């Protein structure tokens, strides 16, 4: 276990369960959560602040839906780059404003050669293609191969169960 795994107690976990689908849209949202859990707003705020500082909460805010906001060209791009440069390129690609997530993942040779994944968003497929070209240019000769996988169907979307019993 790494030291960034903060020990959560029962009430922390209940706060996670109570807020993982969203924060109440009322003037005192933390008070609202506190009442639901039978504690004080002060307690909820302290615990959430601690989870934020330790990285258990990544951030608090709005999660935009790319698709309904007009980004109709979305693709999962996968790249085969030299392993020793994957962090350098991951950071560069991850900081592009049309990339929402980038990850280093394992290869499965020979069937799956790609070690860097990036979700790329554009208004349409044409714009997406230009953006993917821009990534290819950034990688130059270190782009040994790449592909774009478009989603054709959502087969399931239920969301994560973050803690036991939730």
């Amino acid at each position, binding site marked *: 276990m790494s030291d960034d795994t903060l020990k959560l107690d029962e009430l922390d976990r209940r706060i996670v369960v109570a807020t993982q689908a969203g924060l109440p849209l009322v003037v005192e949202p933390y008070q609202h959560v506190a009442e639901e859990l039978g504690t004080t707003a002060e307690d909820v705020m302290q615990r959430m602040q601690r989870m934020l500082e330790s990285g258990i909460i990544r951030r*608090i805010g709005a*999660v935009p839906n790319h698709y*309904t906001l007009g980004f109709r060209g979305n693709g999962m791009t996968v790249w085969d780059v030299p392993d020793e440069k994957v962090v350098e390129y991951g950071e560069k*690609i991850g900081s592009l404003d049309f990339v929402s997530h*980038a990850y280093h993942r394992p290869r499965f040779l020979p069937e799956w050669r790609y070690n860097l994944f990036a979700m790329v968003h554009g208004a349409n497929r044409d714009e997406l293609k230009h953006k993917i070209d821009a990534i290819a240019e950034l990688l130059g000769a270190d782009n040994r191969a790449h592909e774009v996988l478009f989603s054709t169907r959502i087969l399931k979307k239920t969301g994560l169960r973050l803690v036991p019993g939730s």
Partner: protein
Amino acid sequence: MDDIDRSIINNLQGGFPICEHPYAVVAEQLGIDEADLLQRLQQMLEKKQLSRFGPMYHAERLGGGLSLCAMRVPEADFERVTEQVNAFPEVAHNYARDHEFSMWFVLGTETPERIEETCQEIEKVTSYRVYNMPKKQEFFVGLKFEV
């Protein structure tokens, strides 16, 4: 969607305050009033322009397991395998993609060990290999999506 909605989206993807009246604090920064902000957030959620508003938790740091898995499922078997894979409660999202690796799903489990076990169970039920591709590193940004 107007300029104020866009400004809410562009400025509120992180950093929402933890204090007694957080919406009032943010509304003041945006130059609108609290009731207007709450109403706009509500509307953007209803129209699904926002998929969520609130804290985003880090699954692994909560002690659970999280992974992206892929399978090579031929068209003829796709419906059957979809049903079998979706029946696992650990499968949070599942997407069909236009590739030989045709099925991509996210596993979320209560313990890290359950990821590998669930993959094996899915392989047993479906008779197809599960390629378990947990992230080795994340290059996370996510705060700069502009509309």
